[in-house]
Structure formats: C-alpha cells, structure tokens
C-alpha cells in the first residue's frame, strides 16, 4: 500500500490553500491518561475533513477542546490565522465554531424553537420573548433541513433522530465558520441520512469548514475531501480521500490489517451454557434466539440502538421478559432480578463503566468484591484479609495499575477501571460472562490486554458473550457472531467465514438493496 499521499505535517497543505482553522500541537491530560498528545490538524474553508480513529483515540476530546468545553494543557488554536483561547463554549460559538454533540444537549421540556435559540432568544422590551420572530426564524431553519416537525413541538416528544436534527438546526443559527459533526448518523435511519448529507454538502459549498467524525467508512468516503487519523491520542497523518482507500485508512487507524486478527477456527465446544428461544421484550426487541456454549466466545454486533444491550440486560434480570424462553445450562430459568442472575452464575460487564459498573467513590478492593460479598465474609462480617487476597489475585492476574487498593476507582484510567469491573465478575466464578462494549474509551494497550483476557477466559471454559459496535473487536475475538438490527437477530456467522460486507449488511438491515445506492455504498 502506498503511503506517499500521507502528509505528516498538518500545516503543509498539498494545494497550498491557507487553512481556515489550525490546531497546533494540542495536548490535553486527564487524571491518569494523556488524552491528546501534541495533536495538530488543519481544516480548509469549503472542505469536509473526516476525523477518524478508534474509540478512545481522542477525537471527541479534540473537538471538545476546539469547542471550548475543555481547556487544553498545551498548544494553540488558530482561526483564520488568529490565535484563539476559548474558555467556554459560548466564546467558541461566537467565533463561529459549532459542535454538534454526540450526546443530547437539549432541554427536554422546552419547544424546538426555544432549544434552537437557547441562550439567545429574540426579545422584545421588558425581556419578553419575541415568539413571532422566534418561530418564524426557527421554521426557516427547520425548512432548510427539511424537517417534518413544527418549531412549537416539545423536544421531549421527538424521536432521537428528530432531536439530532434540532441539534443541527441549532448550529445554523449563527453563521458558522467551522461545524463539527460528531457521529451524526449514529441515531439516524437510512431515510434520514441523505438529508443530512445534503445539508453538509450545502454548508461546504457555502465555504464552511466541516469536521466530520464517524466510524463508518462508507460515509467518510462519500462525503469527505481529506481524512485525518488519530491513534491513541496522537496525530497519525492526513490523506486526500481521492488518493486513498479503506485499507490504508484502516491501517493508519489501528496500525494493522484486519485480516490478521480473525479468531481461531471454531472447534468443538461444550454444551450450551445459554440458550435463548424466541426471547421478546415488548417494544424493545423480539424473537431473539441464539446460544452460547461453554468455552465459546459469541460476538454480538450491531449499531447503537439495535437492542444488543437490552438483550444483555434481559438475560441479567433487569428487564421483564414478555415471551420466549431462556435456558441456562440446559434448564429453563426465571430470573427476576440481578440478584437472581448473579446467583445463577451470570455476570454482566455493563456498557457504561462509570454509571453502571463502578462505585467511583469507593476504593479498588471494595469495588472488586462487591458482587461476591458472601465469599469474603462470615456471618455477615467482612474478612478484610480474604478481601485483600481476592483483590491481589485479580490485580496481579490482570496487571491493574494502581498505587494501592485504597485508591478510589474514580482516579484510575479507563482501562484499569474496566479491569476492576471484569475482576469483580471473575471473582463470582460465573458460568456465563457478558461483556457490553468492553473496550469503549480504553487506550490501545489495555484494549489488547482485555481482548487477550477474554480469549483466555474462554479457553478455561467460560461461556462468553461480547457485545460490540467495533468490527475489528468482534472479528478479533469471536468464534461466532450474532448480528442484530432494529431489535431482531438478522444473521449468525461463524467467526472464520464471515465477510465484512455481509456483517455490515446484516447490521444495517440491507439484505434487500436500498434505494439510495450512493448513500449506502457497500463496503469493499
């Protein structure tokens, strides 16, 4: 693969055009991690500049620095050649930099129009809101976006996709110079995506510099003129989209080719440890059937919102089953609570480490033993020595880096936090281990360690279910892959036979080709 087109100095542009925005050697540190290490990037007026990188590579952090949400520890931001220091998002916005958030940043109980003009509502004398102007202007913006809802609708009544549109509408209030889209299509349906592409192209043609963050290669190659890649918090080069292909970009992104990483061939596994038969939770997912055998790693792949985490939550006793059966070790089980689930030997490493996995204010040891308190206590009283033994065992086994067991887990890096959560569950000696996005927001080193750990666990006989939206991860660890789309299982593949093409089709519900071929160009 040629790397001739990769320019490693962001400032030097191949066409000699002056960039509208330059980020120079931006550094941002968080407790325990360097999120960004001297990252540079430039964006020209009238281009769509894709920013690529794995989860945790620092894309979102970089954009938050740009939008004034994080104050960098070093480096400078040049907008039209002028140095800018943003202390808060409003300053960035007033300078013409708008970030369209991944997270919803709307006020639910207010109207669409009020959200679009939040903080800058048009006023009449006496601080009164000028509703007429507000709704007229909002409607004009919504019309540009071809939105089907009214500016008077309450945001809390809108679907996620429509909320996303409100976020975009908000960016158009000021005449922006730079618009950052952070995974804008994650929650959009295929029908809505072309509208978004059109908006982006229109903005580009008006001379706006666009930064487009996405995981989806098809979108990036469809939209962008240049692609920059971040890896592990560092700048890893910029390429012209026209001069490159997906393989090259992928290599830049993860430092290796995908093919090398397929999991070992399926071999003879043990009995079914978990079997789902037509499992349905009304309004969430339906007729989900698959099984996980002893010693097997099953990957569950799908987009956000496809119902993967919800299936895991249901197995773990957090949701009420509407119909269907769940067999554990050959027996039908009725699990009504997480307590039941743990007692039956099910473990869930949840998607949201900080909100669901850990008590951030508690120390490492106490978090580690939390799910198996019975084993380290007698007659209800804790046995500190036994607890310490458990902690030491997993701390050493997983090489958890912490100054002491007394350290609050909130102070650890993402990778070490995740290992604590995994350790918590290994301590309960589960029969079935479910990991939901186990490496989200974790640095590359820890990621590889966690992948290796998962494979080791399977070898020792654990039945493992790994939920992920990262294709390399799913391909890398799974013996079998279950694909989900829109609350249904759409396909099941053996780990060594699956093609990326087929996987992408399975998780986007495109067995039948969709009408807009350009928007959903198949991955080659």
């Amino acid at each position, binding site marked *: 693969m040629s790397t001739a087109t990769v320019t490693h100095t962001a400032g030097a542009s191949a066409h000699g055009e002056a960039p509208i925005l330059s980020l120079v050697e931006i550094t941002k*540190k968080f*407790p*325990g991690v360097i999120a960004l290490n001297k990252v540079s990037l430039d964006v020209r007026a009238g281009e769509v500049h894709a920013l690529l990188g794995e989860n945790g590579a620092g894309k979102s952090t970089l954009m938050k620095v740009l939008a004034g949400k994080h*104050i960098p520890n*070093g480096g*400078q931001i040049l907008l039209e050649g002028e*140095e800018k*220091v943003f202390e808060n998002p409003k300053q960035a916005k007033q300078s013409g930099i708008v970030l369209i958030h991944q997270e919803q940043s709307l006020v639910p109980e207010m109207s669409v129009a009020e959200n679009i003009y939040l903080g800058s509502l048009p006023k009449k004398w006496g601080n009164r809101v000028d509703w007429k102007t507000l709704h007229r202007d909002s409607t004009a913006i919504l019309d540009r976006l071809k939105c089907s809802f009214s500016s008077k609708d309450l945001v809390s009544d809108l679907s996620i996709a429509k909320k996303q549109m409100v976020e975009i509408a908000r960016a158009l209030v000021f005449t922006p110079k730079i618009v950052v889209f952070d995974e804008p299509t994650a929650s959009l349906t295929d029908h809505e995506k072309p509208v978004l592409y059109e908006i982006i192209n229109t903005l580009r043609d008006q001379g706006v510099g666009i930064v487009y963050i996405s995981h989806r290669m098809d979108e990036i190659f469809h939209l962008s003129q240049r692609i920059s890649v971040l890896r592990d918090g560092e700048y890893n080069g910029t390429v012209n989209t026209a001069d490159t292909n997906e393989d090259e970009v992928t290599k830049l992104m993860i430092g290796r080719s995908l093919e090398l990483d397929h999991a070992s061939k399926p071999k003879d596994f043990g009995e079914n440890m978990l079997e789902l038969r037509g499992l349905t939770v009304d309004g969430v997912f339906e007729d989900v059937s698959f099984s996980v055998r002893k010693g097997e790693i099953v990957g569950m792949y799908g987009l956000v919102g496809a119902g993967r985490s919800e299936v895991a939550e249901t197995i*773990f006793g*957090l949701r009420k089953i509407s119909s269907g059966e769940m067999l554990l070790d050959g027996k039908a089980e009725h699990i009504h*609570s*997480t*307590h039941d*689930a*743990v*007692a039956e030997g099910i473990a*869930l490493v*949840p998607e949201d480490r900080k*909100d*669901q*996995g*850990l*008590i*951030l*204010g*508690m120390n490492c040891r*106490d978090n580690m033993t*939390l*799910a198996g*308190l*019975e084993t380290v*206590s007698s007659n*209800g*009283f*804790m046995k500190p020595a036994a607890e310490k033994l458990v902690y030491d065992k997993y701390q050493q086994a997983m090489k958890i880096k912490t*100054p002491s067991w007394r350290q609050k887990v*909130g*102070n650890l890096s993402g990778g070490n936090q995740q290992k604590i959560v995994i350790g*918590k569950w290994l301590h*309960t000696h589960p029969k079935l281990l479910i990991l939901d996005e186990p490496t989200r927001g974790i640095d590359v080193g820890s990621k590889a360690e966690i992948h290796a750990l998962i494979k080791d666990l399977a070898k020792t006989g654990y039945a493992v279910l790994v939920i992920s939206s990262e294709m390399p991860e799913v391909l890398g660890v799974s013996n079998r892959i279950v694909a989900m789309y829109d609350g249904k299982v759409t396909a099941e593949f053996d780990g060594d036979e699956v093609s990326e093409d087929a996987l992408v089709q399975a998780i986007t519900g495109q067995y039948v080709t969709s009408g807009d071929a350009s928007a959903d160009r198949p991955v080659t």
Partner: protein
Amino acid sequence: MASAEQTKQGFMLSKKHKAGLLNFLSAQGILVFFLICMFAFSLFSEQFLSQSNIMTVVRQASIIGIIAVGVTVVIIGGNLDLSVGSMLSFSTVLVVDLHDKIGPTGAILLMFALTLMLGAVNGFLVGFMRLNSLIVTLAMLSAIQGLVLIYSGGQNVDIANQSDTWFSVFGRGYLMGIAVPVIIFALLAIIVQVVMSFTGYGRRIFAIGGNPVAAVYSGIRKNWCVFSTYLISAFCVACAALVLGSRVMGSQNNVGQGYELLVLAGIILGGTSLLGGAGSIWKTVIGVLILGFIQNGLLLMGYPYYTQWLVTWVIIIIAVWLDLANKRKRLLTSHS
C-alpha cells in the same frame, strides 16, 4: 502562546497553594472549629469543662443523637428521612399513653412495633416503589403528625403515677454513674458503626448510596436494602421515644416537631454528605455533640437559647465552604 501558558500555570500554582493552606482545615475543619469553640467557652465559664456539665450536655444531646444515628444510615444509602420528627411525636405519645392502659412492657413492645410499621411504609414507598424520598418522608411527616393528633384527640398525655414505675429508668436512670440515655446512645452508635464498617450489609448500603445503578448491576437487592435503612431509622426513633417519654413522663402531641431539622443539622455539621455513599456514625456523633456543646456554652455565657440557632447557621455556612475547599483539593490531587 507562551504568555497564555504562563498565566495558566500561574493560575494552577496559586490554586494549588491555596489548596495547601486549606488542606488541614478542610480535612479536620469541623473538629478544629469545635475545639476552638470549646476553648473559648471554657475561658468564659469555669463550669463548662466540668465533668458534670459535660455529662449533662451529652445526656441532653442523646435524644437527637439516637435519631441521628438512624438517619445517618438512611443518608449513607442515598435517601432522606424527614418524617423522624413526627414519628418521634407519634411514638412518644403512644408509649406514654399506653403505659397506664396496658402496662410498660406492652406499651414499649406495641410502640416499637407500630413505629417500625411506619418505617416500613417509608421503606416500601422509597425502596420498592422507588419514589423520591424527600417528598415521601415529607408526606409522611404531615400524615404522621395528623395520626398523632387523631389518636390523642389533640390532648397532651401523661403518666399518672410517675414515681411508681420502672419505665422511668430509660430517661432518668443511671448505670454505674452514667445516664441511661447516654448508654443507649453510645450502644446504638457503636453497634450501627460496626455494622456499617465491618459487615457486608454496611458495604451494600455504601454502594447503593454511592451509585445505585452500579449497585443493582452488581447483584445487590437495592429495594430490600433501602427498605431496611428506614427500619433502622424507625427503630432509632422508637429508642429515642423511649428515652423522651420516660424522662418527661408525659408528652405533648407535637413534641418531636422540628427534630428532623436538628438531626439533619447535626449530621451535616459532622460532615456526612447528603448525596449518599459516604459518611460515618462517628461524624454524626461529633456533629450532634457540637450542637449540644454550643447550646450549652452559649447558655452558660448568658446568651438566650435561640442564639445557638444563629451559630448553627454560621457553622453550616462554614462547613459548606470547607466542603468546597475539600472538593477543589480532590480535583487537583487527582492528577497523578
């Protein structure tokens, strides 16, 4: 760029410096403040530090202290209990009224049973129905006060033959020279502290208060645990009612009014966060004693009793600022 960097570093440095100065104060602030007050009071009044005065203060503080022990458990679990004041009225009226009707043993047993039932209602609504504890216990505060008034018909109650009953031991008795209320307070504080620090149950309560979602995701039965904290709280109220009823040998039907706030003030002064997941019974004991000694000290210095309210306000404001300093320090030291 260099200048921006420098100013930023300067900013960080000055903050660090400040945090260093506040370091000691913020960690031990309330205790330091307490000792300064004690010292000041002892300068003004020789009596203040005498053994008998100290014992008096502790005895007077024991009723609030006993309730505060239970409420601290609820707060560590991430909830609030505002109904303890009304519940104290309820239990005191009940035990005093029943004393003459069915005898002390029956009265005490029935009082404990009914108080625990009120706690169970709180616990059911907050633990199992997952309702907001502030509003639920606020509603219970009002409802229980109504129940007391309905029960007593608005009349105050008392025990007819006060010199002739062993019931008086809880409020007026002494054991080896120590007042029985103090013994009850100390015993409850020690037992609950041990439970919270050294048992799996305590660990679960801390986990729930720290992050209820993660606690459930760890297989902890949150609903039962939260339910139980309200039983502990109600049990402590019943003990306090025993002491109060026995000491006064009678009861007004609003005797507990406002206790929930004094209890909370003591807990906040001790430094237990209302957010849950942190705190200890020792801190609460210290907070309650601070309230008691300040009241006593101000009285000995000749100030009217209500000046202690002003002082409590000032201390809470100081505690709030110290808490803030503490938070800043944690933010800065978390860089490693």
